């Protein structure tokens, strides 16, 4: 019997309506704790409408954004969308926020001098608006003047932060309801400890901060093509900060080659340089038994929730059913 943990599904705005709709409609019967929705900036479905549709097509599962970059939306839009989704979800909505991936921010010409301050201010501002306050507040990216939401009563929306670096992790431990982490195992161990320590320093319990681990999960036992997996891993490597890479014993030269190739052309070209070792370090792949073994490893270092997918390829629907069944079978085993 493993450490207690939940299993969830991760989707992105770049997926088709058919795929995201299937996941929403089947999430409850699969036994998923949450559906986390990542925003691929300006690509595919619109994040808030997709989140609404996912809430409307499911009954029990928690639906969270995972994440929305605060740097690409007006803070008033984030606050208003939060109120609207909270009403639709009746307590099932969680707001996952972050600064945004390095590659994305560069691609869209978004520059932020003090990302930790920006995220801290954004979280504080959203909570104050949802509490019913009228605000005059500003940051690098937003400016509010005598603005309020006109809420008759305060609302409490859980905020999860998708973060990487040490300062961001500490901020999360201090202020967030949860953290969404991605990265290699050694990094995850370090990050969870940092979040827990920061929570306790701030007078909170480490259990006050949920730890959601979302790494690419690639069920190769159901026909997923490895080239898809390698492409995803190339993108993850390109978005991984140096501080995280420094913790790993991977071939740094190869890693740099991948990052340069992704930046210069695309993840598809970068995938050419992703070998089996890197695939294993940056993703959870293989048979359902092996994948669930890895989930349990991640849970053993303090993760409270593990997210499956994307990439969704091959016979991913059957793969999902079988992975959830495998998790379930281990829970009921003596």
């Amino acid at each position: 019997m493993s450490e207690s943990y939940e299993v969830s599904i991760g989707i992105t705005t770049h997926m088709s309506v058919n795929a995201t709709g299937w996941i929403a409609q089947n999430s409850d019967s699969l036994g998923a704790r949450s559906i986390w929705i990542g925003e691929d900036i300006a690509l595919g479905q619109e994040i808030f409408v997709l989140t609404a549709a996912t809430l409307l097509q499911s009954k029990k599962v928690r639906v969270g954004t995972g994440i929305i970059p605060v740097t690409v939306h007006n803070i008033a839009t984030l606050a208003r969308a939060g109120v609207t989704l909270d009403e639709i979800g009746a307590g099932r909505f969680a707001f996952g926020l972050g600064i945004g991936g390095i590659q994305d921010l560069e691609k869209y010409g978004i520059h932020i001098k003090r990302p930790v301050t920006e995220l801290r201010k954004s979280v504080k501002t959203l909570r104050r608006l949802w509490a019913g306050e009228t605000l005059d507040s500003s940051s690098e990216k937003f400016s509010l003047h005598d603005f309020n939401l006109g809420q008759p009563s305060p609302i409490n929306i859980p905020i999860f932060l998708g973060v990487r670096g040490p300062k961001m992790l500490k901020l999360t431990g201090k202020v967030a309801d949860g953290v969404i982490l991605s990265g290699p195992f050694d990094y995850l161990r370090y990050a969870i400890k940092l979040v827990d320590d920061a929570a306790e320093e701030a007078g909170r319990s480490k259990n006050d901060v949920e730890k959601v681990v979302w790494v690419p999960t690639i069920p190769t036992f159901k026909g997923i093509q490895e080239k898809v997996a390698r492409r995803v891993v190339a993108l993850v490597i390109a978005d991984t900060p140096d501080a995280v890479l420094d913790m790993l014993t991977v071939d740094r030269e190869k890693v740099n080659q991948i990052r340069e190739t992704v930046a210069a052309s695309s993840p598809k070209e970068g995938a050419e340089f992703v070998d089996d070792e890197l695939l294993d370090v940056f993703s959870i792949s293989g048979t359902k038994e092996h994948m669930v073994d890895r989930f349990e490893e991640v849970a053993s270092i303090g993760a409270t929730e593990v997210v499956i997918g994307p990439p969704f390829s091959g016979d991913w629907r059957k793969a999902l059913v079988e992975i959830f069944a495998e998790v379930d079978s281990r829970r009921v085993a003596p």
Partner: protein
Amino acid sequence: MRWGVALNVRDDMSESLRKAEIADRGGIDNVWVTDFPAIRYAPVVAAAIAERTKSCRIGVGLVSPLLYPSTQIVQFMSTLVDSYGARFDLLLGPGDKLVLASIGVSCSSKLMVDKTTHALDEIKQGLSEAGHTCSVLLGAQGPKMIKASLKADGVLLNYADLEMAEWALNQIKNEVRAGFQLGLFPPTYVGDCQDIITNQSISYSAAMVAIGLSRVVSNSFGLLDRIQAARILMKEHGQINMDMVNSLGSEILQRFAFCGTSEQLRNYMKTLEKIGFTSIVFGPPQGIRKRGVEILVKAKSTYGMD
């Protein structure tokens, strides 16, 4: 003539859904969901309404392209259509300068118009490339926006007064192509309306439109001086109040709202049809109350029977 109703910007989700269901079952053609300064994010409300209604079209807007990039507007309209079918329309307009400034969106009036017309092109193109046919309408009042609407699929004119509405229509009437939607979006109160000033909800809505009237139009109708005092008060206070309503007086306010009985509404609609309008969206405060939506449903069910 297509009938639409704008839901209340302060409604919570359950109230919006209840009213949308009444409108849908009662045969109202369009339910409109206003975006900012409404507290709820309109595309999400539109998704929830689509889940709960069957026949009505769902309008998203007014949406300001100053608040959202064109790509996001194309994305939310496309996602709505892909998820719930081709039932959605979009209303674009610059929005209220003062309320946009409160969330850090500021630019000159000229730039607001330029950005909106530029966004109209981008959004039309984006939706077309995505293979979607939802109508993109422009909310307009001044001559520049009215002219710019010719590039859209239709226009909703922010007028109530028949003389002004006809004047606005005449700006483009000879240039519109087949299928172009010519509509009005006036503040509306169907009921007892002996004295507009004593009915705060309609008088405030009418005053907002009057104060926002462009100088060119104010001048054309000899209203510039009569509105000026209310404009100065608005600059001082930042939001509408009874001083502004009193300053405008009932004669002016009556020109910026439809305020009358069901019988008067019937006559009003018939005149609009004669002038050439093809649609109307009954603006606030009509959609504030559930009863207001029910009154419209009843009025529509008997319209055209005589």
